[in-house]
């Protein structure tokens, strides 16, 4: 047990645990937001675990989650479009807190990793995670009505 794994444990127990509670209870608008936040918090937790165990390859797990988490939220936003239009979720502070937390974790890990390809990988993962979750959150809030036909 070191500082990284302790931080990861706190992230999973406090952050992801709270989102699981949020997904399991309450109205739909809270459940979809909690579902979106779960990947936004689990991904930094996985990054912290990779650093704690000294296994850079474990970053791949966080990378895949950063890609698939927001995609999963977009599927829910699409399938539940009618229900969400009637009762739209709005959680700007929770979304921005999760995005800020992910950014802080990525930056701290970058400082610990030092310059190199591993740091670029961390930055790409962080950008995918925060960008994807902000877009998915906006989609849940009805930010893209009808989609864009380019």
């Amino acid at each position, binding site marked *: 047990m070191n500082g990284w794994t302790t931080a990861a444990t706190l992230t999973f127990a406090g952050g992801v645990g709270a989102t699981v509670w949020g997904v399991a209870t309450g109205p739909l608008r809270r459940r979809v937001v909690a579902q979106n936040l779960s990947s936004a918090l689990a991904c930094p937790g996985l990054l912290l675990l990779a650093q704690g165990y000294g296994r*850079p*390859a474990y970053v*791949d797990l966080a*990378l895949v989650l950063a890609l698939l988490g927001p995609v999963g939220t977009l599927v829910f936003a699409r399938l539940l479009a009618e229900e969400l239009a009637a009762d739209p979720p709005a959680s700007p502070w929770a979304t921005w807190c999760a995005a800020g937390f992910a950014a802080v974790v990525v930056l701290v890990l970058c400082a610990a990793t030092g310059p190199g*390809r591993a740091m*670029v*990988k961390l930055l*790409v993962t962080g950008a995918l995670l925060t960008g994807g979750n902000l877009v998915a959150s906006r989609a849940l809030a009805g930010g893209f009505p009808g989609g864009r036909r*380019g």
Partner: protein
Amino acid sequence: MNRRTAFRAALGVLGWWVLLAGLWLVFVSAVDTLELVVGGVVAGIAAAAARGARGAVSGR
């Protein structure tokens, strides 16, 4: 397809290839010749697919 659109299409594929091959280079654990060859080939396939998807979305 005239020469101008063909040039633009090739430029688009090349841009995608540079981006995707760069990502591959960052994501692999060890940089050696085999990784570079495989990365270059799959980046080319993915670049062609990206160009095709882009064309399908924009109706071209």
